[in-house]
């Protein structure tokens, strides 16, 4: 089978990932010699665009980086600027921020589970074909999205690029009466989410284990979503302010996104659902914890193909958290904590659906942004995705190009890469010589 020992596989315009990019795999003499995840677009437009803007603007501007996770961008931006301005959010406002973020998790995870990733496991080219045969299943996914949209419309003002978020909190906060119908929707959605976990737990998962260092936020006592400090599977622990000392970004020739690595560590690292779950599964709320056990997940999950199960468990988690937050909600006296500009630097981190999202802003005394730094999860995961793909392809060289390319695409989709955030469009190429 010489053609399988020397070949190139290419996928251009990779489907069902957020953004645009390509994958190139070159095989020579039966060994995978090169794997590249190519990202084309200049990634730093937004950082340059933020310089010279008022400290009040980054939450609205960075929300436009990604249509799928605008709340993550707003939250990390707000936290960084609030730190620079010395503002601390009172409890109810912090709770509303977490509630809004729960909406984004439900929305993003349901999109990925139902529309982007499940078709891979069920042998369908996409969600449309899946819907033709299993309308009820896809409708369940849309129902989960609907409750997420309700949360984001109520708290964010609209479901894409929310306009109600500001430094220090919100422009307007909901009343208890406005949140009540949401609780009803969420209770119904909890059953749908539990059904989702049972459904995806029944998929066939290739035997694959990634050995990367895992990086996630931690907030002892509860599952990390909108805030926390950073911890790694190798024992690292640091705050947002030390992020740039521990995470080193490097330019690589084939990509306009920077690759990240952890200082003092060889090899790549992974952030996102597997990392969050493995480092924090003990703090899942009760229904999510039980669902994880029922799905066969142990306290640690290192199979990227099972990240669809973790995402489903995290949908349950987000719904439980949202219900709990609504249950104790008392409207704050003011919709926001006032923030006065002052010279300084602030750092913010949150758990975007795809992993840790870091922002840093340097402000002058008038509150003008002097410099900005954004490190999105996909650029952090790019090296880990490449490493996993190299190992994955090496074990499947007996496959012909077409099924191998499909398998590679699925392997990439496991990570739900948001190339839009890291930069942009995806394509797959496998070179067998």
């Amino acid at each position, binding site marked *: 089978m010489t053609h399988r020992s020397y070949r190139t596989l290419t996928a251009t*315009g990779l489907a069902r990932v957020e953004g*645009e990019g390509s994958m190139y795999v070159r095989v020579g003499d039966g060994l995978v010699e090169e794997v590249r995840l190519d990202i084309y677009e200049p990634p730093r*437009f937004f950082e340059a665009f933020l310089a010279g803007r008022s400290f009040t603007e980054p939450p609205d501007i960075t929300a436009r980086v990604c249509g799928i996770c605008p709340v993550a961008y707003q939250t990390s931006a707000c936290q960084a600027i609030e730190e620079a301005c010395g503002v601390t959010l009172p409890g109810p406002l912090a709770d509303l921020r977490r509630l809004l973020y729960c909406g984004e998790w439900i929305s993003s995870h349901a999109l990925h589970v139902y529309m982007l990733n499940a078709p891979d496991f069920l042998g369908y080219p996409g969600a449309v074909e899946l819907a*033709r045969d299993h309308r009820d299943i896809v409708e369940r996914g849309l129902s989960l999205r609907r409750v997420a*949209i309700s949360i984001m419309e109520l708290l964010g003002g*609209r479901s894409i690029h929310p306009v109600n978020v500001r430094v220090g909190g919100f422009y307007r906060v909901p009343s208890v009466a406005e949140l009540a119908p949401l609780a009803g929707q969420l209770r119904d959605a909890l059953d749908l989410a539990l059904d989702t976990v049972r459904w995806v737990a029944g998929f066939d998962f290739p035997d694959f284990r990634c050995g990367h260092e895992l990086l996630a936020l931690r907030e002892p006592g509860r599952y990390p979503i909108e805030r926390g400090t950073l911890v790694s599977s190798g024992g690292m622990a640091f705050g947002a302010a030390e992020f740039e000392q521990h995470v080193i970004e490097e330019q690589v020739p084939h990509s306009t996104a920077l690759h990240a690595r952890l200082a003092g560590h060889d090899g790549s690292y992974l952030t996102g659902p597997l990392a969050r779950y493995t480092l924090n599964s003990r703090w899942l709320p009760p229904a999510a914890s039980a669902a994880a056990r029922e799905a066969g997940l142990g306290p640690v999950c290192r199979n990227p193909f099972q990240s669809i199960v973790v995402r489903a468990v995290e949908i349950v988690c987000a719904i439980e958290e949202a219900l709990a937050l609504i249950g104790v909600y008392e409207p704050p006296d003011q919709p926001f904590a006032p923030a006065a500009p002052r010279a300084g630097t602030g750092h913010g981190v949150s758990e975007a659906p795809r992993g840790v999202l870091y922002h840093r802003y340097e402000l002058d005394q008038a509150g003008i942004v002097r410099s900005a730094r954004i490190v999105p999860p996909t650029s952090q995961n790019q090296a880990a995705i490449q490493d996993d793909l190299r190992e994955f392809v090496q074990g499947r060289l007996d496959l012909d190009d077409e099924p191998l390319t499909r398998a590679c695409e699925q392997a990439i989709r496991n990570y739900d890469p948001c190339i839009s955030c890291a930069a942009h469009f995806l394509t797959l190429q496998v070179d067998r010589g």
Partner: protein
Amino acid sequence: MTTGPGAERGVVVIGVGNEFRRDDGIGPEVLSRLRGQTADGVRLVASDGEPARMIEAWTGARLAVVIDAVLAAPPPPAQISIPPAPSPSTVPLHAPCPGRLHRIVVDRAPAADVHTVSTHGLGLGASVALARALDRMPERLVVHAVEVTDVGRGVGLSPAVAAAADALTAAVLRDLQPATIP
């Protein structure tokens, strides 16, 4: 508050696009021009074009009007595939012409895709196909597609696309006239 045809009949205008991607911002731009000009009850929805959100926005609507950018770049000659029943037809674009407008009435029946600009690999064609599979098409779907060539990062429409915004807004308002709503 008066009640317009939208409130009774379920009318939605969906502006698709990202104002931070140059000409991709034509959808949001027209949406902002429509504010205050439509009857009460006509919903104006900003969207990134993601299918689940598109379907959610137009489910149950008597009329959905979508404004989206369509990438026109040679070569090869671009074309918009329009999915009417019973057989698909196409509008060849020949040479790209930023700002040129296309009005497409999309049938509820299954057919080919409509290719529009999307950063998610899931464009309007996917929304239409998925809505058809789920029987979630609006009673009438009108797509206003604007030819664009610049969807790089940055704000502001190119002069040719900006110049088309008035005509496009007027065309959408014509679609919202009560006589045109099913």
